[in-house]
């Protein structure tokens, strides 16, 4: 059974999600990858306003392919998250409650998630054609010069993710693998 969540994702809601939960997200989420995160964190360091409202936000680590005519967006699956490890604690401290990506996270990111109440969701990597069906609208809101890496505001409907790491630090990469190996 999947849990349906409408964004924004509050800290209280984030704290209720558990590692292994299947979630369907509906509402607004933002995209950002390496280059956009670098700029966002520079703005935070300078005390300047961000081009997105970080409070209760979900950031999807993705650089989509260009939309064909008539499409909202091209293929749009997750990129590997550890490259954002240097930046995610800053964004979580700014109020971000959710991240969508794939792959391992650093102890520093997990510590920030526990401290502030945030979750790390996984989307299926390499399934960009399938996932883009759940993205109904996409609009570049900052850093157009970065092309695929620009920050986009996405409107999603029942976007399927799974909670990999919850706000208590439980990690599906560890528990899922251990559970499978215990059957061997």
């Amino acid at each position, binding site marked *: 059974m999947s849990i349906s969540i409408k964004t924004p994702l509050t800290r209280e809601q984030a704290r209720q999600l558990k590692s292994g939960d299947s979630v369907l997200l509906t509402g607004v989420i933002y995209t950002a990858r390496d280059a956009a995160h670098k700029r966002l964190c520079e703005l935070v360091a300078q005390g300047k306003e961000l081009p997105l409202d970080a409070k209760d936000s979900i950031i999807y680590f993705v650089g989509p*392919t260009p939309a064909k005519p008539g499409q909202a967006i*091209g293929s*749009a699956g997750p990129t590997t998250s550890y490259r954002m490890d240097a930046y995610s604690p800053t964004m979580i401290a700014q109020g971000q409650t959710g991240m969508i990506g*794939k792959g391992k996270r650093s102890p520093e990111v997990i510590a920030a998630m526990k401290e502030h109440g945030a979750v790390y969701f996984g989307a299926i990597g*390499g399934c960009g*054609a399938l996932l883009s069906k759940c993205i109904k609208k996409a609009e570049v809101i900052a850093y157009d010069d970065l092309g695929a890496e620009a920050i986009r505001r996405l409107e999603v409907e029942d976007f399927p993710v799974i909670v990999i790491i919850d706000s208590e630090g439980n990690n599906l*990469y560890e528990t899922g693998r251990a559970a499978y190996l215990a059957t061997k």
Partner: protein
Amino acid sequence: MREIAAQKITEAVRQMCIDANCFLPQDVKNRIEESYNMEPWPQAKEILERIIENYKIADEKASPICQDTGVACVFVTIGQEVHIQGDLAEAIHEGVRQGYADGYLRKSVVRDPLDRVNTGDNTPAMIYYDIVPGDKLEITVAPKGFGSENMSQIKMLKPSDGLQGVKDFILKVVEDAGPNPCPPIVVGVGVGGTFDKAAFMAKKALMRSADERHPEPFWADLEKEMLEKVNELGIGPQGFGGKTTALCVNIEKCPTHIAGLPIAVNINCHVTRHKTEVL
């Protein structure tokens, strides 16, 4: 001497960029479907089902299978009796430029590794040439995503490390990669040669059909053994646990120096893309 116009090469490369990114090769599909049938872990099976659904959508709509449409790796095998009319390298780059624009593919190349300004057209391609007897021109386009490329490693083992060292290193690279490269993966291994040759062989190994084993029985057996060992790690599809960590292990080897045992492991995700055309 057989004449081939550079324009023909541009057209072929353009089409191969689009086709490789949208249509997964049949041998890779077969391996994924076999793995789906053999996978005992329910969550792993569900993920493999989504992966199959994804490439079917990509097939139907001619959409990129993955948003990382890669850096275009182009392998050119030129017959000695072929004469190219025009600039071969520029013809290939132009094919990539056109293919990535016309196919709505992502432009993922930066002009300098440190200033990181996007070139905007996915050029330059990474081109490798091989010259052989004959009058044919064979071109393979392999878009390489970097989620998996970043998980690749190289090591200069000692001759005394031997077969066990080779096995341990392959398993170490897959273990270190864990969920990051979008398992199930294809593992390309290069053993022997020099530092650079080992890495090149590892990449070439990824081009081999999933149905084809190494022609020498010793190495074919090692490929089968390593696939079993990798799939005993339990990483599973997407790293959430399961049997299907890898679809195949392909090893290439060549002679090396008396003092060395170079080994490189190049990882590819389940979206293992390549397209070949002979002109």
